[in-house]
């Protein structure tokens, strides 16, 4: 039966293999290109935009534009990479269960001398193996690419799904979910629609709420110092969250706040600070600090630290995989009860 | 013995109103009476019949059993079903019944024409003598 499951899906799997190869080629070539651009920009003469000599200003500015102009390209590639896993999971899941149920060809397999569970196991293993075989190289490539393209800190939502093992976990989970929903809904179109909704809802939820509950949230306070150049002085922040963190909130909050303030509280704090700044004159570090003290506020960042990256990945992935086991069991139960 | 040419080619008419097994029996009987099948000839195996016409094998079994019952055929275990040597007589017996029926008819017509027994016998004798002279 494993051969049959493979034979039924081999064209789909083949297409995804081609797409995976293309994606990897795209990532590698663009990653290498960006890596060299950044290397140029970070080194002399541009030094990442600090202390550029007047002569090199035009050169560095064009290099800067080039490197930052690739941002939309990077987002596009990262979207493709994420969609790849999700689409593969959906397509394999739908062709495995829902479309066979809809077209009633299950009657052929289920009247031979094998149990429905064995049939499901064969289909599942072919799907899982295909996903893993294709996504592992993809994951490895994109974990590297996240660094090379500097699309953002790996713990931030733009890069986070691409790094680590989540590309594979997502694809596997969507595959298992689609099979479960296919056994429940028994029609291909509605199954895809429901899966898409679930994907959107889950990703919104996880980014907004879910992920932040899986690891501890750190806080860091920012203080200000005055920097004067000639007759121009400004307040420069010091402290705060590390640059490679995922910042959940950065702004003013009453001293002693341990949770991210709500919108109303944020507005109130902002109003108090702006009133204070306007009356005493801004652009001075000491003024900022004294305003903060007077209003009993502090400039605080709530963030998820980069060193929690793997813990977050493992916990989130583990959560999904546990759900997958339950869904798989549910699929077995559903299939046994279907009267065709 | 060559199986390539079956000794009899059966035909089935599903609309004739006659049960299929009876149709087979009648066709064998006709074949024997006409001399197409003779004593010792082998009837096609059940499988051969099924490949000739689309018929239930049980029906063929039934027809062959009926033929055995009537004495037209006999089953030899491991070899097949064969026409009995007496079959000609049995079929002939049927043929003789047909002759008797037509003789009865002729007799009725002779009587209607006004011939009595003596005249009929004389007629017959002249006919037989003629035959003997000729042969």
């Amino acid at each position, binding site marked *: 039966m494993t051969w049959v499951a493979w034979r039924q899906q081999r064209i789909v799997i083949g297409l995804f293999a081609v797409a995976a190869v293309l994606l990897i080629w795209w990532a590698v070539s663009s990653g290498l290109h960006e890596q060299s651009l950044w290397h140029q920009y970070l080194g002399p003469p541009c030094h990442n935009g600090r202390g550029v000599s007047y002569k090199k200003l035009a050169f560095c500015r064009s290099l800067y534009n080039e490197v930052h102009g690739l941002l939309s390209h990077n987002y596009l590639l990262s979207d493709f990479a994420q969609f790849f896993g999700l689409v593969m999971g959906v397509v394999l899941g739908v062709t495995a269960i829902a479309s066979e149920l809809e077209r009633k060809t299950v009657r052929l397999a289920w009247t031979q001398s094998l149990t429905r569970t064995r049939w499901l196991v064969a289909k599942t293993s072919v799907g899982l193996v295909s996903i893993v075989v294709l996504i592992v190289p993809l994951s490895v490539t994109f974990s590297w690419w996240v660094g090379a393209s500097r699309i953002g800190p790996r713990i931030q939502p733009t890069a986070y799904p691409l790094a680590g093992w989540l590309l594979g976990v997502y694809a596997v989970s969507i595959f298992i979910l689609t099979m479960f929903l296919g056994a429940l809904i028994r029609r291909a179109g509605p199954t895809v629609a429901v899966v898409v909704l679930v994907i959107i809802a889950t990703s919104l939820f996880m980014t907004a709420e879910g992920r932040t509950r899986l690891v501890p949230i750190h806080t860091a306070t920012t203080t200000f110092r005055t920097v004067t150049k000639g007759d121009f002085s400004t307040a420069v922040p010091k402290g705060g969250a590390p640059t490679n963190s995922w910042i959940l909130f950065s702004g003013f909050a009453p001293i002693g706040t341990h949770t991210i303030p709500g919108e109303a509280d944020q507005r109130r704090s902002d109003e108090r600070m702006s009133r204070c700044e306007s009356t005493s004159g801004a652009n001075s570090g000491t003024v900022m600090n004294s305003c903060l003290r007077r209003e009993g506020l502090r400039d605080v960042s709530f963030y998820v630290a980069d060193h929690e990256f793997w813990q977050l990945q493992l916990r989130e992935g583990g959560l999904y995989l546990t759900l997958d086991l339950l869904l798989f069991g549910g699929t077995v139960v559903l299939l046994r009860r279907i009267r065709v | 013995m060559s199986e390539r040419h079956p000794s009899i080619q059966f035909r089935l008419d*599903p609309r004739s109103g006659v049960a299929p097994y009876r149709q087979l029996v009648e066709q064998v009987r006709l074949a024997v009476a006409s001399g197409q099948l003779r004593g010792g000839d082998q009837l096609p195996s059940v499988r051969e019949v099924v490949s000739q016409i689309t018929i239930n094998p049980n029906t063929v079994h039934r027809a062959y059993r009926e033929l055995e019952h009537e004495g037209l055929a006999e089953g030899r275990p491991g070899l097949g079903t064969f026409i009995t040597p007496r079959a000609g007589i049995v079929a002939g017996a049927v043929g003789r019944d047909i002759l008797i029926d037509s003789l009865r008819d002729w007799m009725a017509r002779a009587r209607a024409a006004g011939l009595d027994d003596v005249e009929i016998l004389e007629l017959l004798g002249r006919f037989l003598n003629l035959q003997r002279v000729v042969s």
Partner: protein
Amino acid sequence: MNSTQNVLEARGVGKRFGLTWALRDCTVSIPAGKVAALVGPNGAGKSTLLRLAAGLGRPNEGSLTVLGEVPGHENARLRSKVGYLDQERLLYPSFRVGEMLRFGKATNAKWDERMAASYVTQLGIDVDARVHSLSSGQKAQVALTLCLAKQPELLILDEPAATLDPLAREDLLQLLMQQVAQNGTSVVLSTHAIGDIVSVCEYLIILSRARVVLCDDLDYVLGSHRFLTAATSTKSSEPPGVTVIESRVSSREASYLVRMDAPFSDAGWRITEPTLEEIVLAYLREGAGRPDLNDAAQSSGGDGGSQ
């Protein structure tokens, strides 16, 4: 193979889809070693019964056994002894014929590879052709070959010859009869074509509006059913001692299709033999809503059966 066991035993089987009953109070006993025909109009419940027997679902009411076992999704061993051919002759369209045979081998415990290949060659079908390029007759034959190569004890065929042209139908039934001749396989098939029944089947089951109205040996059916006709002036009531299946009374003539279980002695009737088609149609027209006619035969005499 236990030849005295019934291949299919249904007692009061009922199957419901939503609120509609596709089968109701279905009681059938099909003996082994026979080719049985299941006849009835569309929607009568034939496919439902066959699919239940193949293990694709469970009855809501009553009990059903096939080859002495209860069919169901977990009874894989029973399914190795039963070959099922769906009405739609399901195959995987993108597979080649050879790959369909490989499918059969991969999903069945018993599989005769050589027989399958020889059937396909005998039918003149290219083993490398893709299923979607075959004619409907060839598809039916490939689907039937899948069933036959399993070497089953029982074949369940849902309208195997429907929509086939006469030549394809002949070939299909030929293939089937060869299998029966060789292995003594029991067959239950559903059909519209009465002509197939007469030459190929020995057992007749009539389903009408989700109920069984007849379940008997074909010879017995043909031998026991008669038309009784008489002028209305001489006979004013139904003939006694027989089960009336259908009656046609006009101002001049009364005609009854009856089943005789005992020698008929009432005089004054003209007795003719109905064709199988007439018998089946009569049962289909009158069968719905009647009490079980087998029971009615017990209470003979008087008003000639309840109606």
